[in-house]
């Protein structure tokens, strides 16, 4: 490893030490623990309820569809979206509001390295919280099937499904994380940018197919192992796009995230702190 990379690695590790403590162990992050605990509590509660009755009239396929719905509508559109908005949007903007950003800017750290360290810290925090929650909820919803669940997991498609859900989770954190980190760097109030992105992501299924490709959710939906069909009156106006193959969706999302991060790095390089004025 070259001396530069050795230094940058050590600096990123130092940033992670500071940031993870702030993000994961902060009293202000209580609501993220609620998001973490909510779905697993519900799914484990469901399993315990079914087991206490001693019989059940649902199948693994039906519960798998319920989980896919929870994953797409709760995790992707709500928990991860707003979680990433709060975590990544505050990496820089939060420090400006708390007037502590200058402490980083007065250290011998390239600003690009600072951005990389903060992004990595946000990514680890988001993946631990939401990935952990989604995995627990997955176990919880199938638990009452007992041996059937074990067969589904080890001899059926269960483990593969869990792997795809985890991958989608990680990619969602990477994509939304990059967007909201950039928003926190560029805008005084990243919440406004968040609201715009949220509206765009929400109407994604109802815009022409070509426009659907300019969103994160489109690629993530393509990768989900279980497709959730749209129901109700809105299904009539929905535009169902051709799913993007994984070999294109994964690198595509990574490249877009990288481009957004490069833009954010250029902005951080120009960033000024004048709250002492």
């Amino acid at each position, binding site marked *: 490893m070259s001396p530069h990379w050795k230094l940058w690695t050590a600096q990123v590790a130092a940033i992670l030490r*500071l940031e993870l403590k702030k993000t994961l162990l*902060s009293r202000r992050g209580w609501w993220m623990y609620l998001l973490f605990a909510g779905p697993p509590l519900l799914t484990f509660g469901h399993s315990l309820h079914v087991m206490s009755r001693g019989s059940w009239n649902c199948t693994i396929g039906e519960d798998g569809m319920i989980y896919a719905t929870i994953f797409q509508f709760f995790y992707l559109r709500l928990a991860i979206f707003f979680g990433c908005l709060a975590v990544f949007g505050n990496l820089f903007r939060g420090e400006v509001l708390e007037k502590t950003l200058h402490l980083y800017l007065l250290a011998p750290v390239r600003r690009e390295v600072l951005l990389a360290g903060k992004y990595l810290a946000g990514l680890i925090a988001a993946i631990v919280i939401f990935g952990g929650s989604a995995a627990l909820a997955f176990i919880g919803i199938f638990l009452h099937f007992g041996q059937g669940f074990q067969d589904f997991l080890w001899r059926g498609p269960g483990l593969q499904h869990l792997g795809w859900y985890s991958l989608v989770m990680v990619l969602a954190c990477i994509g939304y994380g990059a967007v909201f980190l950039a928003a926190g760097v560029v805008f005084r109030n990243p919440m406004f940018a968040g609201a715009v992105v949220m509206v765009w992501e929400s109407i994604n299924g109802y815009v022409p197919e070509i426009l659907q490709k300019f969103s994160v959710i489109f690629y993530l939906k393509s990768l989900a192992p279980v497709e959730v069909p749209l129901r109700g009156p809105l299904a009539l106006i929905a535009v169902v796009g051709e799913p993007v193959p994984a070999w294109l969706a994964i690198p595509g999302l990574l490249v877009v995230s990288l481009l957004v991060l490069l833009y954010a790095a250029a902005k951080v390089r120009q960033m000024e702190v004048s709250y002492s004025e």
Partner: protein
Amino acid sequence: MSIVFDNVSRFYGEVLGVNRVNLTIPPGVTSLVGPNGSGKSTLMNLMTGLIRPTQGEIRVLNIPPDEPERLFQLTGYCTQVDAFPRGLTGYQFLYSYLRLHGKPDAECRQLATEALERVGMAEAGNRLVAAYSKGMRQRIKLAHAIAHKPLVLVLDEPLNGLDPMARAETIALFREWGQEGRHVIVSSHILHEVDRISDQVILLSHGYVVAEGQIQGVRSEVTDQPIQILVRCNRPHLLASRLFEQDHVVEARVDSDNKGLLLRTRDADRLYLLLNRVVMETGLEVESVAPADEDVNSVYQYLIGHDGGTA
């Protein structure tokens, strides 16, 4: 190796921060003096890269401020901002930010401990910063600025909130660093303390550098204000009567103890010659002769005035 401002201006929209600043700051203690809003913090933020000049160029020991990875190996900045990351003790705060230098764990531990000792905070190092008094927070900020032993120290109102004992100790530290050949750049409102610290001063008003250099040199350039000289002697009335015959002496005031005479003259050299002559002719016993307004406070009053406007 100096800190150089080359025709530097900084505007905040249409508001002037500093304008056309040309400075070369040598090693030693340099004080930035000026009223609120005169541009002291702007100059400090510019030289540390927290803000960028609208025009002009800055070099700190030949390093441009937009290269933090090089600049802050050599520079420490104690800002006026009284904010710290939550949940850290004084020691953890210093240690965590020292790790950003890429130094190994043991070295960071040692530097953090040394910095705490240097500012008299060794005992309080394991307490949360949030529980510190204002003076302690000020000292931990100083410790943060000096922990990596920088060659350039930029200190924005570093004596704020310190008790008299801590002020004296801190001033002694500044002098020590200045004598070690470091650049110590201090802004302060407290002019008599600036006098005790500084090797040179930079006077600012409304974003302009009004004067710079050693205080005697700055005073001598203020030619429109008569120079004040205090003579301690046994017969001040006699001396006053002789000196008043001269047209360059504009004022002579005898001290209430009848042992001193405060003179204001437009020509100090002629006054000293005349004083010699009076001593020879009258046998006047002179205890001391000293300039009475070669200090930052007087120069500040002459050049900037009470209201902060340029005189």
